[in-house]
C-alpha cells in the first residue's frame, strides 16, 4: 500500500477513535497520566528521595481554605505531630493547630531539570517553610507518596513501551523468517517458540528476575528487566506473524520481487512485514497493559525495581500487609492508577481493533 493511503487510513483511525466515547475518555486519561509523569518534578512538591523520618506513615494532609471563623482564605495546611498512644499501642498523628502553613502556587522549591535538560526550581505548589504537605500521605520512611507516585509512574508507564520496542521487532523478524523460508527452518523455529510458550510465563518471569545479581545499579536493573519482559513477549506474537506471512508470501508481488532478484531478507523486511502492520498496531496497544502488569507484579514481589527508586508496583509492596491497608489506605493509590492505565489501554486497543477489523464486533 502506498504511503499516502497509509496516512489516510491512519487519520481515519484516529478520527473514529476520538468519536468513540470510551476511547476518547481513555485517550484523555492516558494523556493526563503521561503529561503528569513528563512534568513529574514540576508537579511533585518533594523529590523522589526526600524523606522525613518524623513522619512515617503520616496520613494525607488536609488542605483548608475556610478559616475557623468561616472566612475564605488562601489554602493552608496544618502539620502533623506524632504521638504514641499507650492505650492502643499505636502511633497516632494529630494536627498541630497552632500554626498555619499557607500553600503557594508556582513557587520555588528544590532544583530539577524540565525534560531532563532545562534547569528550573518552580513547582506547582509548595508550603511555607517548616510546613509539610503530603496529599496522599507518606510511606514507612516518611517519603511523600504523591511525589513518589509521579516519579514511579515514569518507570511503570514507560517500561512496557521499551520492552515492546525490543520484543516486537524480534517477534516480527522471527515470525517473518520462519514463515518465509518454511519447511525445516520453520518447524525448528516454531518448536522453539512453542517451547518458550509452554513454560508458564509468570514462573519464567520471576525466575529470570531473581537471577539478576544483587549489586546492580538501578539503571542496569531497569534495562535488564526490560530485556526480560521483552524475552517473554515475542514468542506468541511471532507465531501469529508467521501465520500471516505464510499466506502473504504466496501473493504475486512477492513472486515479482523474487523474480527481480531481491534477497530473502529484503523481501521479508521490505515487502512482507509491512503487510502485517494493522495487526501489529492492534497487538501493540493490546499488549502494553500486559507489560505494565508484569512490571508492577515483579516489583510488588520485590523482584523488579528496587528501593529507593519508586515504581507503582514496589510502592504497593508496603500494602502487602493488611494491617497496613486497614490503617493506612492511602498506600493503595498506585494500585488504582495501574488499574486506570490498563483499562485505558484496553479500551483504546479494543476500539482500534474494531476499526481496523470490522468483522470482530467486540462492542
Amino acid at each position, binding site marked *: 500500500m502506498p504511503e499516502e493511503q497509509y496516512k489516510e487510513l491512519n487519520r481515519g483511525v484516529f478520527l473514529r477513535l476520538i468519536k468513540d466515547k470510551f476511547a476518547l475518555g481513555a485517550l484523555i486519561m492516558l494523556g493526563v497520566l503521561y503529561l503528569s509523569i513528563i512534568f513529574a518534578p514540576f508537579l511533585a512538591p518533594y523529590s523522589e528521595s526526600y524523606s522525613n523520618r518524623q513522619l512515617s506513615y503520616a496520613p494525607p494532609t488536609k488542605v483548608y481554605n475556610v478559616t475557623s471563623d468561616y472566612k475564605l482564605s488562601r489554602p493552608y495546611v496544618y502539620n502533623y505531630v506524632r504521638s504514641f498512644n499507650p492505650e492502643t499501642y499505636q502511633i497516632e498523628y494529630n494536627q498541630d493547630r497552632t500554626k498555619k502553613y499557607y500553600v503557594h502556587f508556582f513557587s520555588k522549591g528544590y532544583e530539577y531539570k524540565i525534560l531532563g535538560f532545562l534547569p528550573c526550581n518552580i513547582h506547582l505548589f509548595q508550603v511555607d517553610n517548616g510546613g509539610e504537605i503530603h496529599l496522599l500521605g507518606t510511606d514507612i520512611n516518611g517519603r511523600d507518596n504523591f511525589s513518589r507516585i509521579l516519579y514511579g509512574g515514569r518507570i511503570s508507564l514507560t517500561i512496557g513501551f521499551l520492552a515492546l520496542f525490543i520484543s516486537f521487532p524480534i517477534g516480527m523478524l522471527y515470525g517473518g523468517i520462519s514463515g518465509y523460508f518454511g519447511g525445516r527452518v520453520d518447524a525448528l523455529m516454531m*518448536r522453539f517458540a512453542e517451547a518458550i510458550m*509452554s*513454560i*508458564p510465563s*509468570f*514462573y519464567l518471569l*520471576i525466575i529470570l528476575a531473581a537471577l539478576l545479581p544483587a549489586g546492580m545499579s538501578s539503571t542496569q536493573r531497569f534495562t535488564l528487566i526490560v530485556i526480560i519482559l521483552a524475552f517473554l513477549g515475542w514468542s506468541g506474537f511471532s507465531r501469529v506473524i508467521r501465520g500471516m506471512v505464510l499466506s502473504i508470501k504466496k501473493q504475486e508481488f512477492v513472486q515479482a520481487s523474487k523474480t527481480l532478484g531481491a534477497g530473502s531478507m529484503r523481501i521479508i523486511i521490505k515487502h512482507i512485514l509491512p503487510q502485517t502492520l494493522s495487526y501489529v498496531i492492534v497487538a501493540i496497544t493490546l499488549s502494553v497493559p500486559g507489560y505494565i502488569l508484569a512490571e508492577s507484579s515483579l516489583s510488588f514481589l520485590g523482584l523488579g525495581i528496587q528501593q529507593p527508586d519508586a515504581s507503582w508496583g514496589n510502592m504497593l509492596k508496603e500494602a*502487602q500487609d493488611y494491617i497496613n*491497608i486497614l490503617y493506612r489506605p492511602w498506600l493503595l493509590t498506585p494500585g488504582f492508577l495501574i488499574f486506570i492505565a490498563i483499562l485505558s489501554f484496553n479500551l483504546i486497543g479494543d476500539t482500534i481493533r474494531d476499526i481496523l477489523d470490522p468483522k470482530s464486533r467486540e462492542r
Partner: protein
Amino acid sequence: MSILSYILKRTLQAIPLLIMVSIISFVIIKLSPVDPLAELRMNPSITAQTLEAEKQRLGLDLPVYQQYFKWAWSFLHGDLGISTSGEPVINRMMERVPNTLLLAFTTIFMSWMVGIPLGIYAAMNWRKPIDRFMTLLSSLGMAIPSFFFALLLLVFAVKTGWFPSGGLTSSNFSEMNWFMKIVDIIHHLILPTFVLFTISLAGLQRQMRGNLLDVLESDYIKMARAKGLSENKVIYKHALRNAINPMVTLLGFEFASLLSGAALTEYVFQYPGLGRLVLEAVMKSDINLVMASLMVGSIMLVMGNLIADIVLRIVDPRIGGDNA
C-alpha cells in the same frame, strides 16, 4: 484418522516440546550466578554426606551437557533432588500441585458456568444497554491487576471477618470431621477463586459473545431463520454448538494463564499452591525446586493444551487430522 491415533500422535508431539522446555530451563538455571549448593551448605541440619551425594547427583564436576543428561535421567526416575529445607523436592511438589489444580479447576468450572450464559445473553441483546453494560463490566474485570484485587478482598475479609485471611485450612483442621473439613476448605477457597474467577470471566464472556455473533451471521443461520424456526431454536439448536467449539481451544489457554495468574493470588492469600512454592523457591534460590517447578508447570500447561485439542477434536467433527 481415528480419535485414538490422534491422541497418540499429539502425545508423541508433546515429548520433544517438553525436552526443549527442559533444555531451555536448564540453560537459564546454568546461566545464573547462584551456587546450587550454597543454601544447602548453610543449613546446619544437612550433613556433609548429603551434600556430597547431592554434588554427585548433580554431577557438578562434569561438563554442562553431561550435567543435563544426568539431571534429565534422574528427573525421569522421579528423583528431583532435595530442597534447601532438606526435604525431597518431589514431596514438596506433591503437596502443592493438587492445591493449585483444585484452585484452577474450581475457577474454570465457575467461570464457564457463568461466563458462557452471560456471553450468550449479551450476544442476544447485541447493542442493547444491557450488552453495553456487560461489555463495560468485563473491561473493568480485565483491567484490574490480580494482586491488587486480591489485596482489596483481603482487606474486605479482615474488616468483615466473614472470610479467613489466608491459607487453605483452619488451624484446627485436623480435629474436624469430614463434612466440616470440606466446608472449611470451601470457605478458604472462596476469595482466591473469586479473584481468578472475575479475571477469567471477563475474557470468557467477551469471547463467547463474539463467537456467537459471528455464527449468527453465517448463511446456515439465515437459512434456519428463513425456514421459520423460532429464535430460541435457531440459537440453542444451531448457533450455540458451533459458537462453543472455539471456546474449547480457549480452555487450554485459560489453564495456562491460570497457572501464571494464580501465583500472585496464591501469594497474597498465603494459599499453599505451586505458584507460591515457585516464589518461595526463587526467593531462597532453591535451584532444585525452581527447576522442578518449571518442569512440572510446563508439563501441566502442555497437558492442558493437549486435552483441549483432544476435546475439540471430539466435539467438532470438522477439525481434520491433517492440519492438527
